[in-house]
């Protein structure tokens, strides 16, 4: 009788803890805590912000562009060589959006039962990946980051989730580019992104984002494996970066200009005409 009573007492003791602590069982999810920084193959030409981190930027990315969009890319680089912005408005602090926002800086992941947040920082917004089983909305407001729905998978049957599969749809805002050469996504902003996030099986401090772009500027879906390394410091330093703080580009009309060290307008291109000042009174010139 005493054993039965003890057992019942233990059961009763367990119930409130078990039921109330079930709201979010963190042990079911992979440990994505900490600061993640993208891993770039060293020694490659160009900037570090690029879609395929194992290849040089720009033409070196070997993006499967259509002929039309290969020309858009070439035109962008030609304009930039003369001092223009090309197809890269991010230089004037517009958001980079998807997929560029997965190629920069330091990331933090917050995993909740109904949403996984990716904190990106800078000019790009946060990503909310909804994992609450919701359907796609009938209408999606255009954004640079897109609308993301995800699903956790237990691929190896351990009772613990190991993969987050995500689909991100638009319509997107644009223009968007993969990197600062203006490697373009289609101006129709109908991109779709499919991602698989998972910890490396042999090194749990490496996170994979296997990302596939489906876009009308491409001849086929383009998949790369972006990897990120976890900072071993359990209290990492989070930098605050805002593009506008010190940005020297100004776009007036369709022309890109620079600001000199003293903050005055100066041409970005050789023989560039000054801006049209028709709205200023001639007497105040």
């Amino acid at each position, binding site marked *: 009788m005493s054993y039965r009573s003890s057992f019942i007492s233990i059961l009763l003791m367990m119930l409130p803890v078990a039921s109330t602590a079930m709201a979010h069982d963190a042990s079911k999810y992979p440990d994505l805590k900490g600061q993640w920084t993208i891993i770039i193959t060293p020694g490659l030409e160009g900037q570090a912000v690029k879609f395929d981190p194992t290849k040089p930027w720009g033409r070196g990315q070997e993006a499967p562009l259509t002929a039309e969009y290969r020309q858009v890319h070439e035109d962008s680089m030609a304009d930039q060589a003369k001092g223009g912005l090309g197809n890269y408005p991010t230089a004037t602090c517009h958001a980079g959006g998807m997929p560029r926002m997965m190629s920069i800086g330091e990331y933090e992941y917050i995993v909740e039962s109904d949403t996984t947040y990716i904190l990106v920082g800078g000019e790009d917004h946060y990503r909310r990946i909804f994992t609450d089983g919701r359907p796609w909305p009938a209408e999606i407001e255009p954004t640079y980051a897109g609308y993301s729905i995800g699903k956790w998978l237990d691929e190896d049957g351990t009772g613990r989730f190991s993969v987050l599969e995500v689909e991100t749809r638009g319509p997107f805002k644009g223009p968007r580019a993969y990197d600062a050469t203006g490697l373009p996504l289609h101006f129709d902003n109908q991109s779709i992104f499919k991602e698989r996030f998972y910890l490396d099986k042999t090194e749990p401090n490496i996170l994979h984002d296997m990302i596939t772009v489906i876009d009308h500027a491409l001849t086929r879906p383009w998949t790369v494996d972006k990897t990120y390394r976890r900072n071993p410091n359990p209290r990492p*330093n989070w930098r605050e970066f805002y593009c506008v703080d010190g940005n020297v580009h100004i776009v007036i009309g369709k022309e890109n200009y620079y600001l*000199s060290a003293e903050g005055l307008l100066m041409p970005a291109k050789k023989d560039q005409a000054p801006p049209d000042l028709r709205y*200023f009174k001639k007497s105040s010139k």
Partner: protein
Amino acid sequence: MRDQASMLKMTLAALVVLANTASWSFDETKYPDWSGQWRRPARIGNQWDTSKPVSKQEAPLTAEYQAIFEANRADQAAGGQGTDPTYTCIPDGMPRAMNVIFPMEIIIQPSVTHVIIEYLSMLRRIYTDGRPWPADPTPSFMGYSIGKWIDEDGDGRYDLLEVETRDLKGPRAFDASGIPLHADNQTIVKERIYLDKANANVLHDEVTTIDHALTRPWTVLKSYDRVPNPIWIEAICAESNQLVRIGSEIYMFSADGRLMPAKKNQPPPDLKYFNQSRK
């Protein structure tokens, strides 16, 4: 005997489950429910002290900073931006970020509470892991925040988050009227964040600003309403900003994208770096 052995096994099994349950280190039931989207209440403006009109904030400014504020008001009346620095799309920073110009989300985790504000991707990390203040901080617009959860009513559940924020950079103002904070950026912001006792869909943030532009600490009570079925917007300032700074002047963009004066009789920008023969 068999019955006792079975009971013992079941008891041991229950104990194992209990141990595993106890090892789920974050018991969210101990924390208040601050989930969802928080917005300024309807008909509440973006001014710092929402209990007072924009034009009568009565900030306890020192004489020096009152003069700066008055000059700012005159400049704004003439079409300038005065001491409101956010026209270039720099973030509001603290404490202004808590005006919550666009909606906010708060995510509570064991060692940090994230405050995500849907404008300029303003993000606050409020560390609740007992860490000390950093020895060599990097100033930022949002500052460095350390918080502590308090169970004020002794019911075994936290109901109040006390926060202190330091290590700020500028320039910053309290709101769009340009009420200035001191240029020395030595501001300290203290907050008490808690749900309304009568309405769990109202969140309060009692904010006290300690700053050398003020004659005394300035405390205001800010409140936010929880929004059911939220829609999250993406507010990108640079996308629609109609203001630009060239030299020491702020100009506007016309509807056709050309430069135009922001003030009456404002001179055009100095074009000395342009090849004058191209005009």
